[in-house]
């Protein structure tokens, strides 16, 4: 099933993009977006393979993941906003009060 391999490769690329984005970006918002990208990579797998097997469970799962991703983003944004109000920056490298 070459097409399924293509799906896996595509989703893996998307996932890697997310991982690399989290690792190299300094802006908290963009890190957040990249984390969402990772979730979406998983969603692609879920949907494609659900379609492949002809069941809907995977699709429902993906739908739920989208809802969850929204919740996650909302909380993330809230924390980032709180952080911005305290520290006046959302560059994560400038935030290292706690360490050791």
């Amino acid at each position, binding site marked *: 099933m070459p097409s399924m391999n293509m799906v896996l490769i595509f989703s893996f690329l998307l996932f890697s993009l997310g991982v690399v984005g989290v690792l190299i970006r300094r802006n908290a918002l963009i890190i957040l977006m990249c984390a969402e990208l990772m979730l979406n990579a998983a969603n692609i797998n879920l949907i494609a393979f659900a379609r492949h097997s002809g069941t809907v469970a995977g699709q429902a799962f993906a739908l739920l993941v989208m809802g969850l991703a929204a919740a996650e983003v909302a909380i993330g944004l809230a924390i980032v906003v709180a952080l911005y109000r305290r520290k006046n920056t959302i560059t994560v490298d400038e935030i*290292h009060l706690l*360490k050791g």
Partner: protein
Amino acid sequence: MQTYLWLIPLLPLLTSALIGLLGKRAGKPVTAVVAVGSVLASFALSLSAYSLMKAAPGFRLELTYFEWMHVGSLSVPMGLVFDPLSCAMALVVSGIGALIHLYSVGYMWKDEGFARYFAYLNLFVFFMLTLVLGSSLPLLFVGWEGVGLCSYLLIGYYFETDYAPAAGLKAFLTNRIGDLGMVAGMMALFAYFGTLTMGDLLTKAGHLSPEVGFGVLTFATLMMFIGATGKSAQLPLYVWLPDAMAGPTPVSALIHAATMVTAGILLVCRLAPLFQLTPITLTVIAWVGAATALFAATIGLCQRDIKKVLAYSTVSQLGYMFLGLGAAGFAAGFFHVFTHAWFKALLFLGAGSVIHAMHHEQDLFKMGGLRKKLPITFWTMLIGTLAIMGFPGFSGFFSKDEILYLAYLKSPVLWLMGVIGACLTSFYMWRLMALAFWGEPRDHHAYDHAHESPLTMTLPLMVLAVGSALAGWWGVPEAFGGHFNVGQFLAPSLTFGQLHGAHGHHEGPAILLAAISTALALGFGAWGFFSYRNGLAIGEARAAKWPTLHRILENKYYVDEGMERFILAPIRWLGQKLWRVVDVIVIDGLGVNLPGALAGLSGDVIATTQTGRVRNYALAMTLGALALLWIFLK
């Protein structure tokens, strides 16, 4: 009566809790009465336990109260065992413990933390009795750890000083190393026998023949011995005991001379049938014991602190005990535990009395001429000295002679080491006596204010002196026409149904050996006495003659400095540097500047992992995941 035996260990625990909670409110007299009374009651109960044990079949009384742990195939009962060995030891612990409690009342009377002290001390007695009487290895281990904890608390008792807490920590941590051996040994024994109850273990061991070569049993017993070296201050884990003298003197007498430090010997005796099966372990024990006996004795020669002399003497005497055990003379080893408990407790309490009189002056070089000021202390300590040097008829004579004789049978070299150690012991003890009690007072101010201690302190001294003089007659060796009653008494515990390994007690020139070692010891004692009787001049001249040797001995072979330099400092260094490693390697190295990081690595291997930067954490996670993947693919 049998139903009340559990009170033996529990009474001290109960009173410890009471004193800890209410001691301050109740006041010192009440505290003192409760503390001493509870240990006396334990002593009385131990006596009744003794008579019950004598009546029991096979001289063994095993009481199981309930099941403590039941894990898979391992079942550990919560119970006490009374046999000759444990009864004798329980009597020593509670008897000498009661005397030292009484002494402490006088010694600590003016101390602010009177109640705290007795709470700890009674807790110690509880754990020690648990260790002695516990019917299974895990229960013994509870006592083992507990006495370690109490020792830690009591060493650090004077926490206003810098060194006392540090010494306490040192003791506890050194012991933890030994405990690891103990746990490993326990696990090996469990794997081999499927039980950790003393009775079952020894019964099963009784059906085995001695192990040839290095097998599981040898491993297990060796591990147990490592545990014993920690608690009983043998090479190389002895370092904590001299420092432990930072605690109050009665504590040194009770814990670090008479009882706790002999727990290692007790452990080996408890498992004697097992150790019988492992000749390799016995040989190791004998050599470690002999080496410790000799090594510690040499250090004792040049110490100025009266308690340090006694501490090294304790290490050395513990070495003798192990030497005896290693020579398969379990009874002889325990006999020395017994006699040593008397005379070393006496010597420590005597030293405490001197220190008390001299207003907490511990330096021998500042004493002198105290004979007339402290007559009772002087005479009792004299008896203690005669006992430890092995003066014929006093207790140390019989027990030490038995050990040396058995060592000779094992190897003449061991005997020689033991004899040299005995000579040195005699020398430094007489040096101590001469410096403290003879000659001119070297610190007139302290001398003028010196006074004999109160009755609560001198009474225990006198009782202990009588014991030190006479305790040896319990086990007059056969060579001197006795029957070595100790051996016969302990036989049920030590052989546990095994055929008693034929002792072959009439071989060799027993009397001749005893004569040689005694004569040498007397000679060295006289040398030590006359060198220092008139002050420090001769000693100083000798030190000037061999400056290097003197410096080495005075500095205890630089062991502490060496430990600090070669073991502790590297560990600390590693701990600090480890911090930086991941940062430099992982973050800067791979991410930013590999060459720069490599250069930094050589100088400063490690920086902090915990940089506080969230991206570094994510990177570490990613690399961790990749590492896991790599582990799999490999």
